[in-house]
């Protein structure tokens, strides 16, 4: 089984996770730039983070046989911090990079005027750079937030097939299905969305434009939720081709619209170096 996790924050994960993911069939991931759990206080911390998403992290992933791409944006939470507003000015440099396959995560957190402004500007940038976008939907007041997100997306003029609306649930899936955007589901331990509920959504809404991710990060999360959902799909009677469509074909089709996905066959190789540095420790 081959798996493409279209949303996972590997910067927060360990090399054990990479090994377990490879063993579970994960061969490609997209890491959206997001907030780090604690506020950044300057534009420079963002650019260092973006550099890591384009440099060190893909190198680290490749040691374990996993191809790593990223999405770049000013996230909605920090869009509210005036110290971070300058990030919008450096984004064009980053959106031109080979490793960037979408603008993201953008969207709403608390639906403030600052978030409106950042969302609108970044949708414009996506159109300008001909990139797809990954849109985060708020965890609080999700239905209203998702509805408003879809309105803003429509007004921006970006083609709906260039938009992936993420963190959906039973109450928000239909409006996104109707919009023509792609639908993303983050499968978490204990809360929000489980693999069994995901299977029921797929049974009800089909597998077209459907993406499943682990959204694993520095919080309680599980980078193997993609594989566990695939297993749950098989147990529920989906055939292997349909599982492959959801776990591989759909993310490849969505991010492939960037023209930069360019997946090749990588094999685990711990001997390679990044800027002369290795993931190995001395003495190994």
């Amino acid at each position, binding site marked *: 089984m081959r798996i493409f996790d279209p949303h996972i924050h590997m910067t927060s994960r360990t090399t054990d996770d990479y090994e377990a993911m490879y063993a579970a069939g994960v061969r490609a991931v997209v890491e959206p730039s997001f907030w780090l759990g604690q506020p950044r206080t300057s534009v420079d911390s963002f650019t260092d983070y973006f550099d890591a998403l384009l440099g060190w992290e893909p190198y680290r992933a490749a040691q374990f046989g996993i191809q790593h791409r990223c999405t770049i944006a000013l996230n909605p939470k920090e869009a509210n911090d005036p110290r971070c507003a300058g990030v919008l000015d450096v984004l064009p440099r980053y959106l031109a990079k*080979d490793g960037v396959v979408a603008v993201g995560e953008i969207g709403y957190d608390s639906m403030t005027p600052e978030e409106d402004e950042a969302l609108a500007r970044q949708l414009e940038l996506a159109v300008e750079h001909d990139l797809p976008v990954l849109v985060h939907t708020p965890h609080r007041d999700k239905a209203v937030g998702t509805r408003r997100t879809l309105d803003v997306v429509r007004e921006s003029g970006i083609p709906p097939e260039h938009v992936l609306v993420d963190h959906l649930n039973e109450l928000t899936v239909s409006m996104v299905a109707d919009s023509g955007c792609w639908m993303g589901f983050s499968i978490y331990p204990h809360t929000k969305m489980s693999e069994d509920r995901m299977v029921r959504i797929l049974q009800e809404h089909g597998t077209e434009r459907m993406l499943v991710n682990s959204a694993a990060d520095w919080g309680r999360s599980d980078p193997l939720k993609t594989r566990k959902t695939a297993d749950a799909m098989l147990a529920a009677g989906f055939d292997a081709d349909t599982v492959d469509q959801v776990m591989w074909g759909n993310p490849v089709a969505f991010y492939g619209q960037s023209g930069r996905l360019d997946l090749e066959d990588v094999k685990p190789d711990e001997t390679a170096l990044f800027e002369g540095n290795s993931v190995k420790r001395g003495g190994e």
Partner: protein
Amino acid sequence: MAPPIPTALDHHLTPEARRWLTDAVARVGDDPTAVRTVFPAVGRHCGRGPLVDGWTVADAARARLLAALPLRGAALAEEITALHRYGDSAEQRAVLRSLALLEDADASFADLGVPLVRAALRGNDTDLIEAALGPYAARHLDEDGYRHAVLKCVFCGIPLDRVAGLTERADRELARMLADFAHERVAAGRDVPSDIWPIVRAHPGALEASGLPAEATSSSSDRRAAAAAALAAFTGAE
């Protein structure tokens, strides 16, 4: 003899890549800020493979974009310093390889690119170190900086024939440093890279002043063996 880099680039580009690059050069000529988004995109439009003399296709195409910048002196340095700051390693390497060409075209650029050379020399990326040690570094690094750059190459396994200006700039102090380095290697029972010997040989007495010859009578057999190999390489024709 390999063709000059611009000719090699023209031969190498597909018609589509050539159109993209011509258009990008024109855009940069009209508005220098356009370089900020075309410079990172070069690899996927023009290719990334090897060209000539250690340059890649992308290096040569990026050099052409930098040459098209309608900027001089400090303004030019500011723009390329930002490209280097925000660049991935392929972009940084192209900036470093282009420094001599930028100075050739604009004398007021002068030594304004030296901080980028120094940044590369502080790092561990051998690709960037090699790119930094072209003719521009040979012209601008002071004696101490140049000697330490050569020593760093020896430590990182970068062949010294990749370092510009060595014939003119290698001096007795560098020969001493390399002889001491060789002694250290021999004392550890290890091989010495052969490309340091021409420099040490060119400065009679440098080897003798190091402790290396005495290693030939060391009580440890691996040190004796390493010394014998080093001394044979030193006196050898090559």
